[in-house]
């Protein structure tokens, strides 16, 4: 213990870290051995064979926990949490536990393959890496030579550590602006809200450890949030690790695990979080319970104001007081007025309080994501929870070695200046990327046709089937390359598959995210690659070298491991390897108005003053839109068209579909993880399948019984599921579990069918479109109807 305080002034050591490390060491009994890394790292000759512990970093969800992989005779046989990792402190979730089923998955693609027949025909031929890379490099080189490097697009899912920049750098040096992140489906809303209000382009980190009141919008805090493990540990600490037990309130249409384990569940009409947040703001402002000093000195646009030209603008206060009265909000959200008032009162008077934004796909996809996120985040500013203990923190990143310089050649410069294929920056002025818009734009051929598409950890055919439009788009692209590890829906339609190794076989790194303080977590191979697969990082390096020229100069490393080692050369490599991670362990909260404050508020503003003021009235938006309407710059609530009872098809499709990620869902792995499947539906007792949760009322009205097979049909498509009559769901909503519906050719367990589809993919029901300004995905609320099979 002693060496932690000794590194930093004791007074600065955050209480949470101190106590948490104490807890990690002493309480769980994980303790004593675990704190002796030297002893663990040495191999011991056990009864069962040569045994070593390899420290690495999980890549199955965005948490990035440290893992201790127990390797016996060259086989990884057990995964534990790394007790020296500040995020998970020795614990490991079920996805981490079952990562060995990912590593040894029989579904893995074992070597590169090329589609011989028509795309999607499954007529594959296995080829060597050399042939495969030559094929890809040839195509890339050809397009570049033809002056069309921008016609290459790369869609990617979650990328960790240096991989994000590696991909960006590769595409930039190659000459394409089209690096399209899946972020617009999920966490993009939170990021944008932070940028437009707080002025930082970052994902929020919530300090649950020190909060007294945690209000989470969405059902994923304890189930599927980006920093799941950190938040689970923090919530446990908030409840039982300190003298005062904090309160956790979950707002969600469904009683998810978060709702179940929260102190209070607030059922709400789907798609109306924003209204509730504004209704709460109304109560807080009306009762003068907000942090007046903070609001006065460090925010902008709370009161009505006059701009430089003398135009009068509406402020947040008058908007909220005029428009979001309790009665109106109650009517919109379906939450009773006294409950809204009580929760608002509790929130404002039990500081530090924090209002959390959901970051998972499906949570804020009702077409009002941007303003909903702004409204929720405004609550944090109202109670002064910006960068304070128990409030919203800002992730710090460590200083790493610089990337080596290289010059962009003319082709690359020209490519860079092209409009992005997804419309980010053009069609959607605020967007960084608009994943869901790619298929539509490919089909339109706007602004130019796409000649080659790379899919890295992305499966657009599964994410947004859009009634076959995405498949059509994929078919329209002449050359599709997938880095898939399993033959997922999109990879099945690729020309070439360059199979990625699993995270347990490769070198890599991961930024410590979700703790606030800076840190790096190292990923090192626990076992030698099982198959002839490669780390996509290595593949990109190889491609760069094969294409040559500037691209080769931008990547002077032989292997991705070299790249990592060079980037992390500012850190003590030996220690990093021994502990698996390095971090500052201390979060320094910025004092409002101090020099550090400018790092947390306003840092990344482009068109608005970096004056250290939190924007209730977004000056960034104002500058961008030059709009007459003040409303467009203020958090407000737009009723999603699908919610109105007069909505088209409201009678034919009476239910609203709620899709909320589960903890048992393997997000970063498109294959089947048998143990996850066997614990898939905790509340529904459904395994290896999909179920649809409907309310008692709906079941009675439709004469449906628990366990019956039904069709869930939207105007777009229909899926089959088993009915679960569930008390914990908004009466007018139905829930389908995401992450199911993958095809598998493996016979899992006795008497299982071969070539079966496990459950059903709820994404097929929704039509994915984009919000006009932000380019965030809109998927509903999807209206569905249910009828027996």
């Amino acid at each position, binding site marked *: 213990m002693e060496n932690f305080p000794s590194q930093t002034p004791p007074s600065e050591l955050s209480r949470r870290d101190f106590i948490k490390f104490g807890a990690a060491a002493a309480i769980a009994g994980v303790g004593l051995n675990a704190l002796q890394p030297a002893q663990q790292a040495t191999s011991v000759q056990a009864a069962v064979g040569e045994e070593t512990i390899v420290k690495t970093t999980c890549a199955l969800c965005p948490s990035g926990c440290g893992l201790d992989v127990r390797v016996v005779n060259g086989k990884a046989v057990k995964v534990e949490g790394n007790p020296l990792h500040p995020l998970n402190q020795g614990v490991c979730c079920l996805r981490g536990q*079952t990562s060995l089923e990912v590593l040894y998955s029989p579904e893995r693609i074992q070597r590169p393959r090329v589609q011989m027949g028509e795309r999607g025909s499954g007529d594959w031929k296995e080829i060597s890496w050399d042939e495969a890379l030559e094929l890809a490099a040839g195509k890339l080189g050809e397009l570049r030579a033809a002056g069309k490097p921008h016609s290459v697009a790369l869609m990617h899912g979650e990328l960790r550590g240096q991989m994000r920049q590696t991909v960006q750098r590769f595409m930039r040096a190659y000459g394409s602006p089209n690096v399209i992140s899946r972020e617009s489906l999920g966490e993009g809303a939170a990021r944008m809200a932070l940028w437009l209000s707080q002025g930082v382009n970052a994902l929020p980190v919530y300090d649950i450890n020190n909060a007294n009141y945690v209000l989470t919008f969405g059902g994923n805090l304890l189930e599927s949030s980006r920093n799941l493990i950190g938040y689970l540990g923090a919530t446990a600490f908030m409840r039982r690790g300190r003298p005062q037990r904090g309160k956790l309130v979950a707002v969600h249409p469904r009683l998810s695990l978060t709702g179940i384990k929260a102190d209070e569940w607030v059922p709400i009409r789907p798609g109306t979080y924003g209204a509730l947040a504004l209704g709460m703001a109304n109560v807080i402002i009306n009762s003068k319970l907000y942090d007046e000093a903070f609001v006065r000195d460090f925010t902008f646009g709370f009161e009505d104001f006059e701009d430089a030209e003398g135009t009068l603008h509406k402020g947040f206060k008058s908007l909220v007081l005029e428009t979001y009265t309790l009665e109106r909000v109650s009517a919109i959200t379906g939450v009773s007025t006294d409950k809204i008032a009580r929760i608002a009162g509790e929130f404002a008077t039990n500081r530090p309080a924090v209002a959390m934004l959901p970051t998972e796909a499906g949570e804020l996809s009702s077409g009002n994501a941007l303003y909903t996120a702004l409204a929720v985040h405004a609550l944090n500013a109202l109670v002064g929870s910006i960068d304070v203990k128990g409030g919203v923190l800002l992730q710090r990143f460590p200083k790493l070695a610089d990337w080596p310089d290289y010059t962009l050649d003319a082709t690359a410069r020209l490519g860079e200046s092209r409009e992005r294929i997804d419309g980010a920056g053009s069609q959607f002025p605020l967007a960084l990327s608009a994943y869901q818009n790619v298929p539509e734009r490919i089909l339109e051929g706007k602004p130019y046709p796409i000649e080659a598409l790379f899919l890295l950890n992305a499966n657009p055919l599964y994410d947004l089937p859009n009634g076959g439009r995405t498949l059509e788009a994929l078919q329209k692209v002449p050359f599709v390359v997938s880095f898939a590890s399993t033959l997922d829906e999109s990879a099945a339609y690729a020309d070439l598959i360059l199979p990625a190794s699993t995270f347990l076989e490769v070198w890599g790194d991961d930024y410590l995210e979700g703790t606030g303080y800076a840190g790096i977590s190292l990923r090192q191979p626990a076992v030698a690659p099982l198959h002839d697969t490669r780390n996509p990082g290595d593949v990109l390096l190889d491609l760069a070298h094969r294409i040559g020229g500037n691209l080769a100069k931008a990547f002077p490393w032989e292997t991705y491991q070299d790249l990592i080692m060079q980037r992390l050369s500012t850190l003590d490599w030996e220690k990093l390897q021994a502990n698996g991670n390095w971090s500052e362990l201390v979060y320094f909260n910025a004092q409002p108005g101090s020099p550090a404050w400018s790092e947390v508020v306003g840092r990344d503003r482009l068109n608005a003053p970096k004056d250290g003021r939190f924007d209730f009235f977004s000056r960034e938006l104002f500058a961008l839109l030059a709009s007459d309407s003040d409303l467009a710059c203020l958090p407000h609530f737009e009723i999603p068209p699908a919610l109105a009872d007069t909505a088209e098809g409201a009678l034919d499709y009476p239910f609203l579909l709620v899709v909320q990620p589960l903890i048992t869902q393997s997000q970063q792995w498109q294959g089947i993880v048998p143990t996850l499947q066997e614990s898939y539906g905790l509340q529904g007792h459904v395994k290896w399948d999909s179920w649809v949760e409907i309310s008692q009322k709906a079941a009675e009205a439709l004469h449906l019984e628990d366990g019956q097979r039904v069709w869930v049909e939207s105007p777009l498509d229909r899926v089959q599921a088993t009915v679960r009559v569930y008390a914990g769901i908004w009466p007018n909503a139905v829930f389908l579990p995401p992450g199911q519906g993958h095809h598998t050719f493996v016979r899992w367990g006795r008497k299982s069918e071969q070539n079966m589809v496990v459950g059903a993919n709820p994404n097929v029901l929704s039509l994915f479109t984009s919000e006009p300004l932000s380019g965030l995905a809109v998927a509903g609320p999807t209206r569905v109807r249910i009828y027996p099979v």
Partner: protein
Amino acid sequence: MPRWGMVIDLDKCFACQSCTAACRMENNTPVAGKNQADMGRAILWNEVLPFIEGEYPNIHTTMLPRPCMHCDNPPCVKVCPVQATYKNEEGIVLVNYDRCIGCRMCTVACPYAVRYFNWYPPEWPEELKAHLNPEPEVQPRPKGVVEKCTFCFQRLRKAREEADAEGRPFNATDYTPACVQTCTGHARYFGDLDDPNSLVSKLAHSPRAFRMFEELGTQPKVYYLKQG
């Protein structure tokens, strides 16, 4: 002689089922597959059982992670005709897989439903067998016998061996079952209930502590701490 026991704090348990998965990976319980899982034959020694009562919007829920209770007065041991299931001197209830005749009387007798029968030989897709835990105690059980949570007693042996190898006395905190080690909320505590200074014996006497079906007189050694 220690008397091993567990305490599970339901206020810190988030029903994440990590214990369920950790247990499976540590103890080599087989992949059931859809067909068998639908018949309720999936073997998960450490299940989380959801108790959901009430009607919308007032719902009472308890998520109960349920390992074997390792009762001091185990009903399963009493009914086993061949003493294949027994309580060892440290209070851990174990099954002798070589002796079990598969009559399933113990599965019927256990009020906690912790005992699982191998209806079929254990199965994995060939590739997945690589990750099986090589410890001799957890070799896959044959068909036709009953198996259950053992408090990961192979870890107890290893901890003792390790202590011996290092020439130090074995300490109760050296031994941690897989579910306790992995618990994401640090909700599980494990240790010697006979040691008045151990954390588990303190927590087991907390005002929040209760045991499942205490009225049955089985004297479980797994304690729960009430939520909230």
